[in-house]
């Protein structure tokens, strides 16, 4: 584990150093105007923003769900050897983790359903489409990251629930309440993402 840390730190520091060098070069040679965030945001097409949002929504949600499932699953299998009665009840923890991936796919389908082509190039159409692109990217980020951490949380708690249930059957229901709260935070991400995309409209204005 320590050599992985060393490699990551080295790569990260080299990357930051190169960025600083480039930045200093631009500043000192009077070409600071070239570092143009506005140009960057406008030069990328709204289709790219929208589809990246869809990709992030589903992939980060799945990462969170997968992380949670393996964390809980390994503990259920281990604890189930000496206490076989816990095997079926603890699948509820796995279901909570899976729900996180389902939120991700729902949002991905909702967002990708809003993507439409536009051909008019007047400023109002373009502005509206850019707004739509940004909001879909934001929604994808929102739901992706909140589901990632939700899945992690439910996974770690589910692992503890399995081990505690194996020792004392009355503990399972109490720890399930903790899992329910953890699961709620994924739902918050979905709600906010729906709000973000509620007024997004791509395509030619009528």
């Amino acid at each position, binding site marked *: 584990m320590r050599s992985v*840390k060393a490699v990551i730190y080295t790569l990260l520091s080299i990357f930051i150093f190169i960025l600083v060098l480039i930045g200093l070069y631009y500043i000192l040679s009077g070409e600071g105007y070239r570092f143009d965030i506005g140009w960057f945001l406008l030069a990328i097409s709204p289709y790219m923003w929208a589809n990246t949002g869809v990709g992030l929504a589903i992939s980060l949600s799945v990462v969170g769900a997968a*992380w949670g499932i393996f964390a809980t*699953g390994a*503990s259920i299998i*281990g604890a189930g050897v000496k*206490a076989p009665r816990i095997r079926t009840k603890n699948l509820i923890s796995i279901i909570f983790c899976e729900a996180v991936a389902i939120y991700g796919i729902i949002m991905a389908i909702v967002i990708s359903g809003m993507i439409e082509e536009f051909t008019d190039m007047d400023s109002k159409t373009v502005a509206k489409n850019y707004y739509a692109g940004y909001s879909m990217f934001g929604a994808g980020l929102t739901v992706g990251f909140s589901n990632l951490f939700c899945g992690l949380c439910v996974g*770690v708690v589910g*692992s503890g629930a399995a081990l505690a249930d194996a020792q004392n059957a009355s503990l399972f229901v109490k720890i399930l309440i903790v899992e329910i709260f953890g699961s709620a935070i994924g739902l918050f991400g979905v709600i906010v993402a729906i709000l973000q995309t509620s007024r997004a409209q791509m395509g030619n204005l009528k």
Partner: protein
Amino acid sequence: MSISELYYNVDNGYLEGLVRGFKGGILRQTDYLNLIQCETLEDLKLHLQSTDYGTFLANEPSPLTVSVIDDKLKEKLVVEFQHVRNHAYEPLSTFLDFITYSYMIDNIILLITGTLHQRAISELIPKCHPLGSFEQMEAVNIAATPAELYNAILVDTPLAPFFQDCISEQDLDEMNIEIIRNTLYKAYLEGFYKFCQEMGGATADVMCPILAFEADRRAIIITINSFGTELTKDDRAKLYPRCGKLFPDGLAALARADDYDQVRAVSDYYAEYRLLFEGAGNNPGDKTLEDRFFEHEVELNVYAFMQQFHFGIFYAWVKLKEQECRNIVWIAECIAQGQRGKIDSYIQILE
């Protein structure tokens, strides 16, 4: 990184669940109450059948003896430990290997002592602890000095780095063997402590106090046992492991101690050790100091199970099962000899 909750279960999740299951099978107060009411060893065997041990004595011919029970109890723990060790990845596998090194040290010393007393090697090998077996065990009797022992045999075993301080050209005789045992154990304990510290996180949190207590306990026991022997104070000071709370001031004071009361005075500076000495004594009805140390060790090991996602539970499980074996053997001895007076001075492990 100390956020081990995120990736611990990848390699170690199954084994943690399994070992916690084993720990759940440790005998409780009610089991011990049943056992101390047994009249014969056959009764004991019957009562043990309803616990996690099951029918482990089923194939033994009657009459049962205490040594057979002891061997079978140990065998069950060894089989379970080997299963866990076979399924372990790094760094858990190194951690589990560290646990076995203490048994290896005991085996080497047993073989050398046996050879000194002219016993055949084939008699001694079955008495070795199975967890501590290594490949060249049978060849230990060819060595006459520690240097030979190291060069011929130990250099290929995992114990080689612990042997640095022991190599000398003096012959292996009674006194030196004890010094070798304690020096080896000191190097092993310090190596294990350093390994746990480097692991960091919850493993260091749980293991470092346990190993520190082990170091201090050995220092105190060595001091008390050395009164009235030929061991000089300087030699004694070289045997103290330095990874405990007593290092450096307590160890320096212990090195100068001349009797039990001075040792007790040194421990008074450390809160937990003062409590241990207070409960101990040689009067009938008191617990011995060793018993108090065992109780404290059991307490620390039970705490290991309060945290998740660390390796301390594996060490704690081995030590608690060992203590349970000692308890059952104590009860069995009391029953076999008919001396039921001290039958309930076993060490309580779990409620």
